[in-house]
C-alpha cells in the first residue's frame, strides 16, 4: 500500500530513545522518493491518456500519497535535527563517535553550521568576550567547585595557564566554568557539599 515504506522510517525513529539518533536510512529514503516519482508519473500518464472521464479517485489518492510521503520524509529529517540540536546544548560541539557515524553527510554539515551560527551569535552578546549560553544553564552557587576525576583524563590546561594532570579518583578545585563541560561529559563529578 502507498506510504508503507515511509511509515516504516518513522517507526524506526519512534522506537529509538529520544536521546539517541538511529542510523540514517538512506535506502529507505531513496525508496520513498522513487515511490513519489512513480506516483507523479502515473498521474501525468492519466492526464495524458484520457481527456475526459478521468479516474478521479485514483488521481486524488496518488496526490494524497505524494503529499503524505513528503510530510513524513520531512518529519523524519526534522525529528532527527531536533535531537541533534538538543545534543549540541547537552554535550557540546564534539559528538560521540557512535552518534556521528549514524548521521548523513548533510546532517553533519547542518550540525557544523549550527555550531558555527551559535558560536558567532554568542560572540556578539555583551561587549567584548561574548557570553557562552551553554554554560551555567542553572544558576551557579559558587565560582569554584571541588571535583573528582572519574577517569585518567590526562592534561587539562587551566584558565591561569597552569597544566593539571587529571588522574582517576583524585580531587581538584576547579573554576565552575571549566568544570561544567567536563562534568556534563562524565569525565569529572562534582563532590557533594
Amino acid at each position, binding site marked *: 500500500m502507498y506510504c508503507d515504506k515511509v511509515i516504516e522510517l518513522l517507526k524506526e525513529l519512534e522506537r529509538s530513545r529520544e536521546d539517541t539518533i538511529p542510523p540514517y536510512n538512506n535506502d529507505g529514503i531513496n525508496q520513498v*522518493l522513487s515511490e*513519489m*516519482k512513480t506516483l*507523479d*508519473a502515473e498521474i*501525468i500518464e492519466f492526464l495524458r491518456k484520457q481527456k475526459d472521464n478521468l479516474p478521479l479517485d485514483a488521481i486524488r489518492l496518488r496526490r494524497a500519497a*505524494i*503529499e503524505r510521503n*513528503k510530510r513524513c520524509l*520531512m518529519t523524519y529529517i526534522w525529528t532527527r535535527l531536533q535531537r541533534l540540536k538538543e545534543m549540541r546544548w547537552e554535550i557540546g560541539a564534539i559528538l560521540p563517535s557512535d552518534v556521528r557515524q549514524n548521521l548523513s553527510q548533510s546532517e553533519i554539515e547542518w550540525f557544523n553550521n549550527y555550531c558555527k551560527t551559535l558560536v558567532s551569535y554568542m560572540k556578539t552578546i555583551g561587549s567584548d568576550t561574548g557570553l557562552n549560553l551553554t554554560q551555567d544553564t*542553572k*544558576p551557579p552557587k559558587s565560582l569554584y567547585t571541588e571535583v573528582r576525576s572519574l577517569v585518567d583524563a590526562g592534561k587539562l590546561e587551566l584558565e591561569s595557564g597552569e597544566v593539571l594532570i587529571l588522574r582517576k579518583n583524585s580531587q581538584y578545585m576547579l573554576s565552575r566554568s571549566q568544570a561544567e563541560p567536563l562534568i556534563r561529559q562524565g569525565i569529572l563529578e562534582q563532590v557533594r557539599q
Partner: protein
Amino acid sequence: MMHPSEIEFMAENEIIQIVPTFNHAGHVHLICGSYGPFRAGLPLNVPIWVALNLRQKKTCRILAPDWMAVDKLQERLEEEKASKFFTQLPSNFYLEITQMLLTVASEDIPQGNDIKTAVKDLWDLRIAKLRSSVDLFIKEGRVQASLNHLTPMEINSVRPVFPDTLDALMTLHEHINSSDDREDSSQSSIATPSSASFSPSL
C-alpha cells in the same frame, strides 16, 4: 517550565538581616542596590545571596526572618487549613528561603528541624489544595479561574502539566461541529510548510 533552582535564584534577592563580625565603613554597591556600612555586632539588611556568602566565610550571623518561627508557622498552617482559598504568606519564597538558610546557617536558627517540618507541612497542604483545584478545574471544564497568593514555586509545580492538559483539551474540542477541515495541519504554532506541489524533478 522553570527549574526549581532558578526560582531559588530569584529568592536569593530577597532581603534579610545579618549581624556581621567585621567592620567595613563604606557601602557596597551592587546591581540590586547599595548595602552597608558593616559594623561588627550591628544588624543590617542585605540580599540573601550576600548573607549566604558571608555566612559561608563565617563573617556574619544570619537573623531568621520573623515568620521563620515554629509558632508563627503553626498559625499560618491553621489559617491555611481553615481557609478554602490560598492564604497570603509573609514571603513569596518561604520554601526556598527556609531551605537555603537551614542548609548554610542551621546554627543561627533555633528549632531548625521543627521549622523545616512546619514549612513542609504548609507546602504539602497548599500543594494538595492546588492539585485538587486543578482537578476540579479540568473536571468541570472551566475556562477561567483566579488563584491568588500562590508562590512562584507552587505555580511551577503545575507546569508544564497544566498548560499541556489545556492544550490537549483544546485539541479535542477544536472544530467539534465541522467535519470538512484538515485533520492535523494548519492549527499549529510551528511553521507549516505550504503544501506546494511536488515537483517531479525531486
